[in-house]
């Protein structure tokens, strides 16, 4: 279970260094792809943690949106420093995850997924209809500063890339270490057997709540980065249910074996989407949808350890007929 520890950590570190070097040679559009991948990858890491717990959210665009819109609103009141924006965007998302978590932690399966979706659509509804929040047009994002400094020209984007890469690195390593901790291993435990967790002395609900907050924080951070990268926030591209669907798409694409793989998955998604849009604009959704179908149906690698877990679970369903015989 744990001898891979070194591999993922060093893999991530190597990845970060690689990105630093790459940063010097990237063209602008590539950097944009990179930034968007990092942004979405962050969300997907949170979803990975939830997926391992046996939960899928069809509404994480909620927290993504909180992060993004916090940036917009703070800029309106004059805050432009990226560190402050990142902190606040993440904190706001985390706060809502904490509050909603009390409710959501009691649900499982499709009800968990749909309740998340409902809340995300509530936010969408508010943002899309309220004029002062930009309505469907959204709000523009100005350039941000780094502790008072604002690099000129290409330097601005390079600095943004470094910031995003470092943040993603810290988040990824943190998530990786988290998954190796007792609480992290409880993703598996809760998914497998909540009763057992309870009788070992821990509350499955509390475990879920912690994970939910973590996923909210990560999604919020992703939203902040996306907002700054794109320079604009609007409900449809950030809070709508399809956005949530895309996040889950990335999670499936990456497989949930490895935190690093999530960013690669996000990159693949980004490339797929960009190139599909570029070369076949009439059918880019078809290509995206087709790819997802392909992965779901044929690609064990894309699913990685999920799949073997699913296989196990189906065997188990036969092996352990009734879940518990606790009641008379």
């Amino acid at each position, binding site marked *: 279970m744990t001898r891979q520890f070194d591999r993922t950590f060093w893999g991530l570190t190597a990845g970060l260094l690689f990105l630093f070097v790459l940063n010097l040679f990237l063209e602008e559009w590539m950097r944009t792809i990179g930034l968007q991948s990092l942004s979405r990858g962050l969300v997907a890491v949170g979803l990975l943690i939830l997926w391992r717990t046996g939960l*899928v959210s*069809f509404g994480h665009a909620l927290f993504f949106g909180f992060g993004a819109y916090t940036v917009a609103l703070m800029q309106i009141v004059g805050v432009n420093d990226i560190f402050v924006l990142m902190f606040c965007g993440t904190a706001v998302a985390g706060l809502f995850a904490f509050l909603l978590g009390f*409710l959501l932690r*009691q*649900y*499982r*399966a*499709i*009800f968990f*997924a*749909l*309740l998340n*979706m*409902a*809340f995300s*659509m*509530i936010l*969408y*509804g*508010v943002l*899309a*209809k*309220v004029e002062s929040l930009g309505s469907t047009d959204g709000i523009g994002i100005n350039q941000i500063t780094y502790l008072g400094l604002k690099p000129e020209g290409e330097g601005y984007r390079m600095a943004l890339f470094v910031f995003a890469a470092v943040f993603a690195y810290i988040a990824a390593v943190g998530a990786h270490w988290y998954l190796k901790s007792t609480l992290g291993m409880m993703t598996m435990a809760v998914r497998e057997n*909540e009763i057992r967790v309870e009788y070992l002395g821990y509350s*499955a*609900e509390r475990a879920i709540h912690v994970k939910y907050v973590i996923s909210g924080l990560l999604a919020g951070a992703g939203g902040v980065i996306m907002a700054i990268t794109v320079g604009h926030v609007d409900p449809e591209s950030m809070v709508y*249910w*399809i956005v949530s*669907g895309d996040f*889950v*798409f990335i999670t*499936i694409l990456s497989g949930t074996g490895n935190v690093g793989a999530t960013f690669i998955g996000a990159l693949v998604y980004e490339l797929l989407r960009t190139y599909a849009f570029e070369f076949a604009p*009439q*059918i*880019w*959704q*078809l290509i*995206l*949808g*087709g790819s*997802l*179908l392909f992965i*779901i*149906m044929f690609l064990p690698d894309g699913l990685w350890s999920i799949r073997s877990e*699913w296989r196990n679970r*189906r065997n188990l369903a036969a092996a352990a007929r009734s879940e518990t015989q606790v009641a008379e």
Partner: protein
Amino acid sequence: MRGIALDFELLIVILVDGLVYSSYLFLVAVGLTVIFGVQKVLNVTHGSFYAFGAYFAAYLIGLWTNGGLPDWGGFLLILGSALILGVVLGVVIERGLLKHLYGRDEHVMVLATFAAFLVLEDVILLIWGTDPYLAFAPLALLGSTEIAGLIFDVYSLSMISLAFVVAVILWYGLNRTQFGKILLAVIFDRELSMAMGINVTKVFLVTFIIGTFLGALGGAYHAPIISVQPGIGVEVIVLAFAVVVIGGMGSIPGALIGSIIVGISRASAVHMLPEVELFVIYGIMALVLVIRPEGLFAPVKARRI
């Protein structure tokens, strides 16, 4: 006196508009809920069925009318297009996709239908392009009528009747026919039904076709009232989800009540405080999920720890 008259008018407007919304929502949602009840799949592709229905019907009506043929034919085209789509799309999706995925994690199945939805959205674009289709021949044919001093078009009212008729037919079909009883058995317990010798595979296929037909009918019948354009499926499916959740997943009366609730709420918001339109609908959805996750009328038990 004037104040009261205005309020009364507002009430009528909300009621009629609300019921019109409810009707096409019901047609879409009832298909969705039946499919979920039988196959336990939350079929996102249903939004495409609605859109396909709308496009196909609008297209055919356009051809027909331009061909100088009588306007009432539009109704036959609506029904016909829904039937054709029901069978074609139903078979394609159920046999081509879902059949291979039964038994897998329910989230994966929803995602697969989401993927199929994306694909079909573009197929629509490929076939019909991005320009809107307008096919108001049937609408014009039925003219308008006056209720309490307000003008409404008869076509919209007829949609309300259609929804009602469909609801009754479904109720009858489910409770009084052989197939309906089989369906109820499969909804209740799939394994037991199989053990009893019911051909569940066939039941799945037929159910899915019926569901697809209903979704397409919702779109087809709605087409003359709206501007048929890209994206209508996206909007509808998430509303239909809300309806199904509120009414109860797998429950036909639930779909009826749910669509009425959503329809009236939406109409109320639109006519009184437009900003809360979506907030209200999804707020109710969230509320129902919290208070009674199975929905107001449901057979499905929510997993709550």
